[in-house]
């Protein structure tokens, strides 16, 4: 079961502009939350703060494991992952991209091989294992980003617009992957989308943001 997550009065300014204003929410473990809202409403900033890539100017972000608040350190960062909208693919093979998260954790070679193969099969990229990752199509790149996150079995999986700018076939594949993860309930899934129908299909709970605030549905 994924981690619980509580944020309280999180605010963030960039160059004097208020991007987030007193955002508070409690995310239950193992549930899927879909965040919606217009461009510039603060969704991606909130995700980067939740992924511990940056800090809010005010407020608190707490991860809880069976009601125990976890310390913000490398060990906690390694229990969650964020799939970025521009993915950030490394200039190497598909295999090495997916293996990255395991390699930095010092996982042995045989385990890496097995887990990467499983993840690539799950996202339909098994046949492209030794291709250069930068030569994949947009849809394949998105799936590679998800495989890279899946392989480390995160307890919180943040997906920032995982189906933006890709065709319906790839979108369907990614939705199927998310639905499978959701059914297995190994992770708390947080996702951003601009597609209301997709939000309905995937989310246990829908969250809306406007002008840097979480607003009632």
């Amino acid at each position, binding site marked *: 079961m994924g981690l619980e997550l509580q944020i309280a009065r999180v605010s963030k300014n960039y160059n004097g502009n208020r991007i987030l204003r007193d955002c508070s929410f409690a995310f239950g473990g193992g549930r899927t939350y879909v965040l919606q809202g217009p461009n510039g409403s603060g969704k991606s900033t909130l995700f980067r703060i939740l992924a511990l890539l940056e800090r809010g100017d005010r407020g608190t972000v707490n991860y809880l494991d069976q009601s125990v608040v976890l310390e913000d350190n*490398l060990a906690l960062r390694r229990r969650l992952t964020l799939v*970025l909208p521009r993915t950030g693919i490394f200039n190497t093979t598909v295999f090495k991209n997916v293996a990255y998260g395991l390699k930095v954790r010092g996982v042995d070679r045989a385990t890496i091989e097995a887990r990467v193969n499983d993840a690539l099969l799950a996202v339909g990229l098994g046949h492209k294992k030794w291709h250069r990752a930068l030569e994949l199509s947009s849809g394949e790149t998105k799936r590679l980003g998800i495989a890279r996150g899946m392989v*480390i079995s995160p307890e919180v999986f943040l997906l920032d617009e995982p189906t933006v700018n890709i065709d319906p076939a790839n979108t369907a594949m990614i939705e199927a992957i998310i639905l499978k993860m959701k059914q297995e309930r190994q992770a708390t899934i947080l996702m951003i989308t601009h597609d209301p129908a997709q939000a309905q299909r995937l989310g246990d709970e829908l969250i809306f943001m406007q002008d840097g605030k979480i607003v009632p549905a």
Partner: protein
Amino acid sequence: MHSIIEGFAAAFRLIVSLNPELGRIILLSLQVSGTALVLATALGLPVGAFLALRRVPLKGVVISLLNTGMGLPPVAAGLFLYLFLSRSGPLGFIGLLYTPAAMVIAQFILAFPIVASLSHAAIARVDPVIRQAALTLGATPFQESLTVVKEARYAIMAGVMAGLGRVMAEVGAIIIVGGNIAGYTRVMTTTIALETDKGNFELAIALGIILLTISFSITVALRFFQRRGQAGSKGSLWA
């Protein structure tokens, strides 16, 4: 015209017959420039990476100094190094003047700013999303830095090749601190200068051809690394 053709013919004979003197000069050139480049890379790459990845006080000043060093006139570098290494200089007691080691130091001084500055530029150009991706996949700060440097590897290699091009073609600094001593500190460029002065063109032309071949190889390698660095490129040599 006749003497030029004769000169080329004699030069080809020297190359084909694997003339031992020619071989010795080429070997020393490669040893001196190779060592200088290895040292310049060993120090220049970490310095470039550090400047690109960390907050450093006076970063702008350091980068400006490195960029200035890229255009450092070799004779000026040679002159200052000579003053330091000469018997009356502060490092004269080491006795390095007119040795291959002094030539290595001179070429290191010329190559270091190129490797450091171009490494810095290469690493600073890596898309910030790469750093975020590395962190969100669980990298430590050191692993994250290593990942960013790895992403810049082709541009860094291009910088190293530019450094090699600079030192291989250089004559001003090494002739001052090396002295062009036959069989000891005589390298390709200094031999070409000397033999041309003496009107002894065969050896000069032979070395000129080899130097041009090396220069061409460096250019091809540079192009290869630049192409490899471009996203999605297969790194073709000629495209």
